[in-house]
């Protein structure tokens, strides 16, 4: 699948879903695979509504035409029934094979744009919260549930299914879970795994040595160039996962760290040139998409000066203070 679908591609997939739901008499709200597809991209809900509306529009033909169609039915059917058999046997078989594999093995791409945070229920009952600028592929197969984190960060609440292990790949790092909740973040300096429930098993593909088990309230950084392992307290983990609610929680982080956290979510970047100011510690709870509130709070409590334009919020020492 392509990284970013065009409106037309989405329209085509929506047509398939609408035809399937209609043909099988399913309830859209109760079909977990449809719901998972819809949740994969906010644009899909509109395309699906449009496709269902087209079916409803076609049905108006029947409503408007009224009765006296049973007689015409046989006439309409007879000549082309032969055509259907004559010309279409091979093509039908091909379409059938294509249709069957389509639903079973297709992997689903989930994307978020800058500043976007989304919660997506998966077809197996698991839930994934996806942080800003993230791309992951979900392939739910008969024997495995395979998630490939292409970039960014996601938190998984895994539905218990001992028959189908849930494995997240991030580069060469693998994280395996059965019924747990954990996050994986791909950064420039390694893969950060944090566990909020249960236990996960982590390893690096192609590397010998024991698999590392990480329990709830613990975190580990794998495949890192600088620090191989970094212990984290449960409170720290909860704080670093505040993004799931669209929040950034600061508890004594430096202003420099805080700025880079906000900069993950916003095109309007916070810049702190003064290294001494960047090392100041700060406490507070902010919305990820409100770097202005953060800057205003810093200005008020530390006595910094704000200069801002469309692209940059610049914090500097207020010379007067």
């Amino acid at each position, binding site marked *: 699948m392509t990284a970013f679908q065009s409106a037309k591609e989405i329209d085509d997939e929506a047509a398939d879903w609408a035809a399937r739901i209609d043909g099988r008499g399913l309830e859209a709200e109760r079909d977990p695979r449809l719901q998972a597809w819809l949740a994969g991209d906010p644009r899909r809900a509109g395309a699906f509504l449009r496709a269902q509306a087209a079916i409803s529009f076609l049905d108006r033909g029947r409503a408007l035409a009224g009765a006296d169609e049973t007689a015409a039915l046989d006439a309409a059917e007879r000549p082309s*029934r032969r055509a259907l058999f004559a010309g279409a046997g091979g093509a039908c078989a091909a379409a059938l094979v294509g249709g069957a594999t389509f639903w079973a093995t297709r992997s689903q791409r989930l994307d978020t744009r800058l500043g976007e945070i989304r919660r997506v229920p998966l077809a197996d009952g698991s839930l994934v919260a996806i942080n800003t600028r993230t791309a992951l592929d979900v392939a739910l197969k008969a024997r495995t549930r395979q998630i490939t984190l292409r970039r960014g960060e996601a938190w998984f609440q895994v539905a218990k299914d001992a028959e189908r292990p849930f494995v997240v790949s991030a580069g060469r790092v693998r994280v395996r879970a059965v019924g747990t909740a954990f996050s994986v973040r791909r950064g420039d300096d390694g893969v950060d795994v944090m566990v*909020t429930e249960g236990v996960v098993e982590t390893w690096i593909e192609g590397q010998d040595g024991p698999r590392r088990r990480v329990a709830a309230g613990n975190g580990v950084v794998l495949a890192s160039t600088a620090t191989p392992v970094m212990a984290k307290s449960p409170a720290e983990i909860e704080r670093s996962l505040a993004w799931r609610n669209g929040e950034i929680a600061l508890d004594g982080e430096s202003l420099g760290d805080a700025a880079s956290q906000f900069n993950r979510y916003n095109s309007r970047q916070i810049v702190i040139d003064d290294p001494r100011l960047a090392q100041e510690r700060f406490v507070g709870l902010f919305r990820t998409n409100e770097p202005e509130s953060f800057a205003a709070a810093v200005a008020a409590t530390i006595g910094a000066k704000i200069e801002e334009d469309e692209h940059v919020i610049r914090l500097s020492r207020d010379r007067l203070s």
Partner: protein
Amino acid sequence: MVPSPQRLVGIEVQVKQSRAEIVAFVGSQILPHEADVRAWLRRTGSLAADVDDIVQETYCRLAALETVSHIASGRAYFFRTARNIAIERIRRARIVRIDCVTEIDALNVVDDEPSPERVVAGRRELRRVQALIEGLPERCRQIFTLRRIHGLSQREVATRLGVTENVVEAQAMRGLRLILRALSETSAQDHPSADKGHDRVPVRKRDR
């Protein structure tokens, strides 16, 4: 605290009570005007890909509605919403283009007044449905006629044609894709009434 899964799922999966009503409303009051909205957007200078995105977002906003009972005219609503989205997109664009003021001005001339011909709904709409189905490839057309015009279930269609339900489903998918494309291209006005005064059952001419 880790938020409970129930709470998280509750945010995403909202069961909309009037889904069927909303679908019927969009099918009868919105979708028939899509080709006109697209044509108007193109006239204002929007690129084809932008037109696709704007139209899709309009449907997204409709999909997010709990109720559509406040919408008096689907056609006017469609034009107004598309216009608002187009203007938001121009304003949001990173690179502010020199011609964006003219573009917004162009969008302000909303062409949402139904012309007298458009008001004559019923029979015209029936012919449009007929034309859409007739435009499909043979097998699709067969299945759509039985399913949509004669109201047979997918299973009944399969039995009648002596094929499996999967074949019918694959054709239904293919046909719906084609019809959605046709709906975005052909306006309600592109199908002038040929045989006024006949309330004919919508089947192909050669079958009559």
